[in-house]
């Protein structure tokens, strides 16, 4: 009986030892990789927009997953929703890489939900436009794609649009839309109207007065580019300021549309990518950012009319180039507004907007 008991204890001991050895071997294998993929099996959480998701999957996410054997978890939403989520989870962050635009990237830096990147880990950084390398200062973000806010119009329905002043034309009553104040480009509309009517971007009281005058002419104000697409395809809207990354889809509607560089120029901005504060996968996060900046990804995104390249070495065919934020002539027309200033006035401007739109 005693012999049986001892044998039983020995078997249990050996089993436990075997399990421990197997588990530690597995852990080591996961950490170092078994086939030259040091991050194989890991997950990386990206906070990003969901617009053109099928193309983003094809051009960015899938190639990265296949190259490094990792699983990308995507958290989509507009700037404000994702920003708020990250702030709410500040003490227990889940996001490894965050993509924000304009003043939202500044607010993310200010709020401490993103952290500086290490330039030495981004091999593609040197290939970017100078002002894309560190748009916020302090290496908090990289501008991975350049965009602009332009004006489009239906060539079969309205006369040519050449200036932001044209938005006040009588014929545009009931067929006009502008981006809402909480969107990336919402505040830029105020600046552009100020420039158009007062000759000065900073004469924003004039811009606001014009917003008030335009309000009755608006079908609605859109809060997502996908909303603008619906408005265009349903033929509700003939003229609107549009984000360049949506131009491919607008063209896809098959309607006769044209985009213009207005007299006042275009609003330029970078979509920015940052490392999530508190990430435990900093190296992998840097790899993802570097992948986003790589030649192949930037070229594929441009060819699909999703994102205009922030790299300077991308040569695009003319038929593609004309639909993107690309080329010296167009780039020279871009005005970049101060992110901090936009973040500082946000609350006041939203209240001002609501006052106009609630009456």
């Amino acid at each position: 009986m005693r012999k049986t008991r001892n044998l039983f204890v020995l078997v249990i001991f050996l089993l436990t030892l075997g399990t421990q050895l197997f588990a530690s071997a597995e852990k080591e294998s996961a950490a170092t990789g078994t086939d030259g993929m040091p991050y194989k099996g890991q997950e990386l959480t990206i906070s990003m927009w969901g617009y053109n998701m099928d193309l983003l999957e094809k051009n960015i996410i899938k190639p990265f997953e296949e190259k490094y054997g990792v699983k990308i978890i995507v958290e989509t939403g507009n700037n404000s929703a994702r920003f708020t989520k990250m702030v709410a989870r500040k003490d227990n962050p889940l996001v490894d890489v965050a993509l924000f635009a304009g003043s939202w990237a500044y607010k993310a830096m200010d709020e401490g939900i993103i952290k500086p990147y290490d330039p030495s880990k981004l091999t593609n950084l040197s290939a970017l436009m100078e002002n894309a390398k560190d748009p916020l200062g302090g290496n908090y973000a990289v501008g991975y794609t350049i965009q602009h806010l332009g004006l489009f119009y239906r060539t079969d329905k309205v006369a040519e649009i050449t200036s932001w002043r044209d938005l006040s034309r009588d014929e545009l009553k009931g067929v006009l839309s502008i981006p809402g104040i909480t969107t990336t480009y919402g505040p830029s509309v105020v600046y552009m109207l100020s420039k158009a009517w007062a000759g000065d971007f900073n004469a924003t009281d004039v811009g606001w007065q014009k917003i008030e005058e335009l309000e009755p002419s608006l079908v609605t104000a859109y809060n997502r580019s996908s909303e603008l697409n619906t408005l265009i395809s349903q033929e509700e809207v003939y003229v609107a300021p549009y984000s360049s990354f949506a131009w491919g889809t607008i063209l896809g509607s098959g309607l006769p549309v044209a985009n213009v560089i207005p007299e006042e120029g275009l609003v330029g901005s970078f979509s920015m990518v940052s490392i999530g504060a508190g990430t435990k996968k900093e190296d992998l996060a840097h790899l993802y950012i570097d992948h986003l900046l790589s030649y192949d990804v930037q070229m594929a995104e441009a060819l699909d009319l999703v994102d205009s390249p922030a790299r300077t070495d991308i040569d695009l065919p003319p038929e593609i180039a004309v639909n993107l934020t690309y080329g010296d002539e167009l780039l020279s027309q871009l005005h970049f507004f101060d992110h901090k200033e936009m973040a500082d006035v946000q609350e006041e401007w939203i209240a001002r907007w609501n006052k106009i739109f609630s009456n």
Partner: protein
Amino acid sequence: MNRFHFKNTFILLLLPGIIFLIIFFLSPLIFVLMESFKGAEGGISFIRYREVLSDPQFRFVFIRTLKMALIVTPIAVLVGYPSAYFITKLSSAKKSILMSLVILPLMTSPVARTYAWIVILGKYGIINQSLTSLGILREPARLMYTEGAIIVGLLQLFLPIMILTLVSAMENVQDEVEEAALSLGSGKAGCFFRVIVPLSFDGLILGVTLVFTGSITAYVTPAILGGAKVLTLSTLMRQEALVLMNWEGATVIAVIMILTTLVLYNGLRLFKPRTLV
């Protein structure tokens, strides 16, 4: 002993539901309440309520939301009551078919249902095309991005709930009661208003409360059909919470929504026919 056993079983059956409600409903509700009364330097304060209630923009949005809910709810009652009465009088097979038709929209995503309205109410949508081709309108009318569009969308969203609630309540009214009223000389209309309606009044209160609460708190339908030009309480609350990060302001709006519903619910109970109290 049997009674004791029954009591224990009863409590055990209730327990999972009660625990679920405490964790996922009561606790967040208490948190929202506490947050709304939190002063800038701690302690209890009404300052946030004063700030929100004195804001003319909030008052405008509150009145607009209330107005739309007060339009949607009576229409749902007027359309729902005869429909529910008709359904309860059908044979079992026919009733099943009609109930399936009532439930069918509830099985579709509210987003998909709301987007369908864009096709119907759009500038070149079905309604505008019909009216212009019949010569009733010369130009397409603005139907989308209006209060009217939201009201239509909310009505479609909540009418099935009203009908379902009323059908459940009317099924409890025995046929003999109705027959007795008719045999005692009451007309069909009199029987409906003096017998059926009072006996199904609890269902009506529940239906009205659900439709009213749904109309006041709906987000997707007002956001899509109303757009940025027609702010409602829920779209305003989203803006406070997700854009301005003003959680305290958002909690005050949430509490005001809850209070409004409670006032309606208890107010309606006062109108309950006395004979049944």
